[in-house]
């Protein structure tokens, strides 16, 4: 009984961690699923989202001291909301530029796209170093979502509950957008049969631009949410891109719910091993991945290929 009582907080922690992993993977899933492009810059865009959030929460406007003073006088809650919504917009614009650069790689060896996004990742990371420097930064949070809550005799981070709730909201909004709106239908159709979509008169280039931009904006959303937990540093993107890649393959490429379930599984496994076999906590996600892919190569919710018997 004691064991179960002790286990419960770790299960809860695993679920919240899993939701955050799913949030990190969402944008990556969208771009891989719809455009069949592995965006290796996902991690750097995630980091860029953190830095834009930093800018919107506590801007350094050396040339405009009055504007800076006015802005900083706004409540922290307002500035945080501005960061949460504007940082993804700015990163989305970066994403658009990246998609425009990627157009020359479409229809060619996928290696070109990989190399381009890898190069973009390096450029973005260095850009961050140039603009913001390389030291650790902190994102200030509104009082209402910072601090701790007491559950029984355990302290848990209030912000983690907010972050998990936000992750659920982001997943639902994306699902509604893809399933219940005409634009979502176009995106899914574009993923299944781009030639037919083009034949129906839909501007495929614009659609791809939008999807890529949306995917990168989601990377930024994840970055803003994760900033207070992981801290902000230029190379933090590496910590995001690896689990994101693992989760979308585990869940099945292109499957939204696959990514969510895989994220939750990874979160639970990492959370539980962290508590009971801590030296395995990072390794556990890779072991889970190997275990699943060994028996189901297309991932948990991946569609069966015509080549499979």
């Amino acid at each position: 009984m004691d064991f179960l009582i002790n286990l419960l907080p770790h299960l809860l922690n695993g679920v919240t961690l899993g939701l955050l992993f799913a949030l990190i993977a969402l944008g990556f899933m969208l771009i891989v699923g719809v455009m069949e492009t592995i965006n290796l810059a996902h991690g750097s865009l995630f980091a860029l989202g953190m830095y834009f959030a930093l800018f919107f929460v506590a801007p350094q406007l050396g040339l405009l001291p009055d504007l800076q003073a006015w802005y900083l006088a706004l409540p922290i809650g307002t500035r945080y909301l501005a960061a949460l919504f504007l940082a993804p917009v700015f990163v989305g614009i970066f994403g658009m530029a990246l998609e425009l650069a990627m157009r020359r790689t479409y229809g060619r060896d996928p290696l070109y796209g990989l190399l381009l996004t890898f190069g973009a990742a390096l450029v973005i990371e260095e850009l961050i170093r140039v603009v913001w420097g390389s030291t650790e930064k902190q994102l200030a949070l509104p009082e209402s979502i910072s601090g701790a809550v007491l559950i029984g005799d355990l302290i848990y981070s209030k912000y983690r509950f907010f972050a998990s709730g936000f992750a659920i909201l982001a997943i639902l909004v994306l699902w509604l957008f893809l399933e219940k709106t005409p634009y979502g239908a176009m995106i899914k159709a574009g993923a299944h049969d781009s030639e037919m979509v083009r034949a129906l008169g839909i501007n495929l280039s614009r659609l791809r631009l939008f999807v890529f931009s949306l995917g990168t904006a989601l990377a930024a959303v994840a970055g803003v949410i994760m900033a207070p937990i992981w801290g902000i540093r230029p190379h933090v993107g590496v910590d995001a891109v690896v689990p994101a890649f693992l989760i979308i393959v585990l869940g099945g490429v292109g499957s939204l719910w696959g990514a969510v379930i895989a994220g939750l599984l990874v979160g639970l496994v990492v959370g539980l091993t962290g508590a009971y076999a801590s030296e395995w906590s990072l390794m556990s996600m890779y072991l889970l991945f190997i275990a699943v892919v060994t028996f189901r190569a297309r991932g948990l919710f991946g569609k069966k290929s015509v080549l499979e018997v």
Partner: protein
Amino acid sequence: MSDRVKKHQAQPNETRRKILKASAMAAATAGAWGAAPFFGPWKHNHVWSQAGQKKPLVIGLTMDASGQYGASGSMERLGAMMAIREFNAKGGVLGRTIEAIHIDTETTPATGSRVAERMITRNEAAFLIGGVHSGVANAISQVAQKYGCVYFNTNSSSPTESGKDCHRVKFVWDGNGTNFAHAIVKNALKANGNRWLLLTNDYVWGHNTSKAMRTLVEGNGGKIVDELLVPQNTRDFSSYLLKVQQIKPDVVATAVGGDDIKALRQQVVSLKMNQKPAWINNQQDWPDVYGLGPDAIFGVFGTTWYWRLDLPGVKELVAAYQKTYPGMAIRVPGNVYYNGYVATRELLRCVEEAGSTNNVSVIKKLEGRKMTARDRMQHFDAWINPTTHQCQQTIYMAGYNDKPAEKDDIFRILAQVPPQEVEDAGAPAACKLESYASTPTYEQ
């Protein structure tokens, strides 16, 4: 064949002989005048022998610029560069200008090996300097020993570096986990209680530092209630912190470093666990805490230097850092920079004193070397233990400074402990230095 043709054929041979004679004379004359005569293999020396000037002394900087210790690696590199800059301003060493080459060792032992091999065999580095991650430092030192190249481990602190992984060519400049544990444990047991939990980075430094901590805690009547291993590059500590709450130790002793300790400190603060239990971080590197904010600098931790020590030379070193590296995000130097600086400075002094870059001559200058407290900007004299090659130095205990004299005055020095009191007594038995005879001669 006509005489004219024979004469014509003989001319090149005569010319070649003349050139050879002239070259030999020139080389001998150059040697007499003190310039480096050509003795070494052609591939090493042809450019400088042709140019008629002394070959620069190349120092290979094997510092991490990325990965868990990227931030610390960058700072120790600046420290080493500062010492090199000072020597070059005086005309270099042995009349040779000093050139530094840096390759990122990526906080990865395999990369450390590759970098060391390349620097020795291709870049003709005379010495190697740099190391924060003990696994990387160990890998570099194995390659250095193979060639006989003197290597300075500037900032990695696993007790094994001057214990079972010691080498004749390796010198360890930082305090190690055992030194810091000696400085901390007794007082912490009295002040905070007997039930300790160890939070250990899952690699050589973490393991050996926690091992030293465990030995001292248990030897002084304390109890280790659990040890949680933290894989490198862990960013989420929530499950660890829940476990800490469930176990309810009096003290959490961490041996966690680099980006991992930054994330841990922030997450401890977000749970408001920074006041209870008591936290002890074996060693706190300056780049891992700078900019984290006052709440995140909780607990007691060890260091080897602080930028506001009231000692001769400290202000000058800080001013030189700020002048040389204006606009740095880290506005004042810390322990990692300091180690990089004093280690490189001492190496170049030894080369000057030895009058040679020959490895054995330099090693003999270093073994047992005494350094005054004033010169090292610490409270007590330091020396290099000839049986372990570790620098025995002052260890400082610090905590957060709630009454800072200025913006970056974030540490409060709680105590300075002389090296004799924190000596790693087990190191001499564990360290088996290779003999001089079995260490290859190396000179660049």
